[in-house]
């Protein structure tokens, strides 16, 4: 039905654009990780020394492990908050379902920076939370660890990613055919069994999608730590940022980025395989 010319006109521009402005840049990142900086100048000498330095230096591994812990905590907390919310909306909210759904979506459209800034004003020593606690005589002095700590980063990122995690879980739950659940009840299963053996497995694709998204984006986040992390809440992406900034060691920064990229793509690949196993036909 469509001529050769039509198909070419339609496919060529996006293909060429994406090749030039996505494929080439990502390839450059990869190439840089295999190059070197000597005496402040980029030397295009192919080698693996950047990766060796990464694994040998305890500073990098320490920050990296902290980053993984933070990302895992954010993912777990977002799931603990987002899943019950999605469940409530899907099964218990009845006619108010759509309206409540819109209310959950709204914060997603509000700038990341705005939400991060809000937490900054709440958690500081002179912030709203400390003011609140002192006003009600629950504490006498400002509590220091609320802000500029890994705790603050986890709190802020959980706040950002809970709606993100909610979305695919809600979609999955909505897709579960209700007759299936009735069948489970008819066969004598109590509510807990129905949940663990019917609903939860069927909502796995959504859960995995949301969890992967939250984990991967938290892993590579650098703004959160800059806003509320302080020096104890620094994450691996901040190190990349300084390597591309003041420190000027692009190859090393690129090497770390390649590692993050590798982890991300592996996780995406794994969840895709997992999804195929769990998906309901």
């Amino acid at each position, binding site marked *: 039905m*469509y001529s050769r010319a039509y*198909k070419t006109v*339609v*496919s060529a521009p*996006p*293909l060429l654009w*994406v090749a030039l*402005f*996505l494929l080439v*840049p*990502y390839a*450059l*990142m990869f190439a840089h990780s295999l190059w070197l900086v000597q005496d402040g100048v980029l030397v295009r000498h192919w080698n693996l020394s950047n990766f060796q330095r990464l694994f040998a230096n305890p500073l990098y591994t320490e920050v990296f492990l902290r980053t993984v812990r933070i990302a895992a905590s954010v993912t777990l907390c977002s799931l603990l908050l987002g899943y*019950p*919310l999605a*469940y*409530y909306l899907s*099964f*218990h909210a*009845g006619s108010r379902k759509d309206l409540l759904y*819109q*209310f959950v*979506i*709204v*914060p997603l*459209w*509000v*700038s*990341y*920076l*705005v*939400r991060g*800034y*809000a937490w900054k*004003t*709440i958690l500081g020593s002179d912030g*709203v939370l400390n*003011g609140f606690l*002192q*006003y009600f005589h629950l504490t006498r002095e400002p509590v220091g660890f609320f802000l500029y700590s890994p705790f603050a980063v986890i709190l802020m990122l959980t*706040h950002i990613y*809970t*709606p993100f995690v909610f979305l695919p879980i809600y979609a999955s739950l909505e897709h579960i055919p209700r007759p299936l659940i009735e069948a*489970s*009840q008819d066969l004598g299963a109590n509510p807990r069994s129905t*949940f663990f053996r019917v*609903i939860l497995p069927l909502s796995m694709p959504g859960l995995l999608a949301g969890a992967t998204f939250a984990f*991967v984006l938290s*892993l*590579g986040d*650098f*703004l959160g730590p800059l806003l509320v992390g302080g020096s104890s809440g620094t994450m691996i*992406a901040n190190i*990349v*940022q300084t390597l*591309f900034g003041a420190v000027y060691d692009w190859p090393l*920064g*690129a090497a770390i*980025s390649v590692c993050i990229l590798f982890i*991300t793509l592996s996780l995406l690949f794994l969840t895709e395989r997992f999804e195929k196993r769990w998906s309901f036909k």
Partner: protein
Amino acid sequence: MSPKSPTRQSPLLAIYAGLVFAFIYLPIVVLILYSFNRDGVGGFPPRHFTLDWYSQLFADGSIWDSVLNSLLVAFGAVALSLVLGLLAALGLDRATFPGKALFRRLVLLPLILPGIITGLSLLMFAVFAGMQLSLLTVFLGHGTALISVATTEVFAGLQKIDRAQEEASLDLGATPWQTFWRITLPNLRLPLIAAGLLIFTLSMDEIAVTFFLIGRDNTLPLEIWSRLRRGMTPEINAVSTLIFAVSVALIIIWYRIRMRSMGSEAQQLLERP
């Protein structure tokens, strides 16, 4: 036990859901509240209601310059992403070409990867190509990264179009170009508008990729960011509140468009013989 819910209507769950909602909205409420507070962004409770921070905001020239810059970039990104996304969706739907599977994944990557990776890759590309960092590089970055938003929406929209209409048009002697303009495109109006709205919002808020591609002219998020480094004042609360208000307005419009598109879908289903 009602047949619709698999578990008892547990009040605990309702309370928990309410708490989650409160958690999601708490920072925003605090933000808005304190934008009217005379005595600063912290402390409790807020006293002395004032609109001074808003008047200070409206007199603040560099913020409005950055808003203009953001709008320029956002409209540009919408145009670029919609055109390329539309073509890509048509290509994915109707053509086979080498690298199709790779293309589909590659174009999604900027949305799934942390922004720093895409931002730095584009930075390296700009340096490699000898480009100066400026609003142009930001525009190219946003436009490229957001192509898949348009592609996904338009592709979904294409699946809902009745092919018979296009075939009939061609049979009646219209050229493929005419068919595209008069049949295909009008049917894609709603997905295109919805995608455009989403791309606009994402571009206005974008900070991670923009961070590395920005030159001398700031976009709004980066202007706010540089202010934050200097100190926090309720003026930032005021601009944040305005951003929140505009975002809510946009999502209401987007929701309306989606409802209309679902309505027209239902209508088409009813009209089909």
